[in-house]
């Protein structure tokens, strides 16, 4: 027998009698104000939260907050006044010098401040991880209360890669001292728009 068959046979023989899955639809949290909750939690985990209102305002904020002489990349065609449009055919290794990446999230999660991104909004899978600073546009109406709600929205959507990102890259491996910017972004800004 092959290793596969051996393992499967042993598992089948040794696993106990079937026990039922629990009902997880009981996890319902009714947040009065998900936008406020999201904002508080995201700021609490070291993120920068800006109520921008509109994409037009985001442009002004980017001009004000980031050095236009450095490489700024976006996957949003509406933001090409302030950023270079990400080229889907580029070698991901050429993204090493990106100072700021601006992308739009599918949704935000109030209970933990995370945003949900899939590779189609990332442009390149590595972009939100390799950039020195990350900016994410979150539409207020896309914010959900908990991870359960997030997964009911994601449902059975097909993607090659997707990820929750809940703040700047961080580590506390040296004496539990918190350091933002381990390997990835040194900061993460969320621009809330209506």
């Amino acid at each position: 027998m092959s290793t596969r068959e051996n393992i499967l046979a042993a598992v089948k023989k040794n696993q106990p009698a079937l026990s039922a899955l629990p009902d997880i639809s009981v996890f319902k949290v009714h947040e009065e104000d998900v936008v406020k909750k999201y904002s508080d939690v995201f700021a609490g985990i070291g993120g920068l939260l800006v109520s921008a209102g509109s994409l037009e305002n985001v442009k002004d904020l980017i001009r004000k907050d980031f050095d236009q002489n450095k490489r700024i990349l976006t996957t949003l065609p509406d933001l090409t006044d302030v950023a270079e449009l990400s080229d889907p055919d580029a070698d991901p290794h050429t993204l090493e010098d990106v100072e700021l990446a601006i992308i739009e999230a599918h949704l935000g999660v109030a209970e933990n401040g995370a945003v949900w991104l899939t590779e189609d909004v990332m442009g390149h899978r590595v972009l939100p991880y390799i950039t020195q600073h990350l900016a994410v546009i979150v539409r207020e109406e896309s914010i959900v209360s908990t991870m359960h709600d997030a997964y009911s929205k994601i449902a059975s959507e097909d993607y090659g890669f997707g990820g929750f990102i809940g703040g700047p890259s961080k580590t506390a491996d040296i004496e539990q001292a918190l350091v933002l910017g381990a390997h990835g972004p040194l900061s993460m800004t969320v621009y809330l728009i209506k």
Partner: protein
Amino acid sequence: MKSTLDHAALAEEFNKDEERVDWHDGALWWIRQKRDRSAHQTPQWEELREAASAIKSNVISNLHDYLIQFEENLKKNGVKVYWASDAEEHNQIVYSILKAKEIKQMVKSKSMLTEECHLNEFLEERGIEVINSDLGEYIQQIDNEPPSHIVLPCIHKRKEEIGELFHEHLGTEKGLSDPTLLTRVARKHLRNVFLTRRAALTGVNFAVAETGEYVVCTNEGNADMGAHLSEVQIASMGLEKIIPERKHLGVFLRLLARSAIGQPITIYSSHYKKPRPGQEMHLILVDKGRSNLLARPDFRESLKCIKCGGCMNTCPVYRKSGGLSYHNTISGPIGAILAPNLDMKQHADLPFASTLCGSCSNVCPVKIPIHDQLYKWRQEIVKQGYSASRKTFSMKAMALTLSSPEIYKTAGKTGRWLLNNAPFAINNKFNPWYKQRDMPDSSQQSFGEWYAKNGSKK
């Protein structure tokens, strides 16, 4: 790196540096308190733990079918699947994947399984260099030591020691020990590693049978940096990492980081499903004792573990003895119940490295009755004749105490009274945990606090 000393002897070594023990104890207790705050702020926390435990019970009871379903979906998604029954087979598979592409260097993110398999050593012997990219694991690797904690690999090290290692290996200024500056140096070095490695290996936190995707959680982003820049991506996972459906991730991702370090979610929870165009994705399903463990009704629940490290942070013995004293990749209470399944003789000492206080079971997000299992392993080990005489003595006393609720109650009270009023009575040669210490000092406070809180519940 295998030690021939047992846990008590290694703990004794660790305890010689009192300042370090106190720091270690305090740092872990602080993390435990963060976990508590985070848990209390989460509505339906206990129901969540209950649900997570029930989902894992279902997984254990239906693992055969889930594995087949997962494999089918992986293949549909374009991922190559391998099965390995032990470390040797696993390591050979990784080696053959790399060899086929003539790859000589690989970057690895955190994976306790590959640590257990001694993959790095195996590949190095065959001319392949592996760099661990999690900062704590990187530090442990350059110091030639295994991780001492599954979530906080170098929690036993002081920043001055890390500064010294960086001076030696990365050329930093002598005496530099500022955590931010050291992290920046590592960042520069490791970003260059990510950019130049053609192969990346990651562990797996959760593998979804329904979709064939697997989820990797980190705070640093190192798994993603490695994987998304690689042309060959490899994931190694133990069979037990399966969960049935995508929606179940909601339950586990809510629990994991809160239980681990009191954070609402890991910064990165990455769902890998299909390779990028031009990239290869490989996934290795590893048994390494899991199917055996399934056959042990008393112990199979330990397969529910999601490796949050919560049981270590709260364990009074772990906090005072350090992870390396467990001479096993997975240390602490969970290590002490997983290790004897693999080699009862070699790990006969570990189930005795506990006060059986039950604090581990109280924090475990998947409700593994860890302290019950520790007690059952003790019985098993004594029955098989593997225990040393001193431990058998404590063990027998413990067995007598626990077998009678009345004696247990009195013993509990006496124990608490003694601890408060006559610590020297506990600090005797039959109790290895107090060997180096005359009197409980400041570090004892947290144990005292814990005792006051949990001891009274009994």
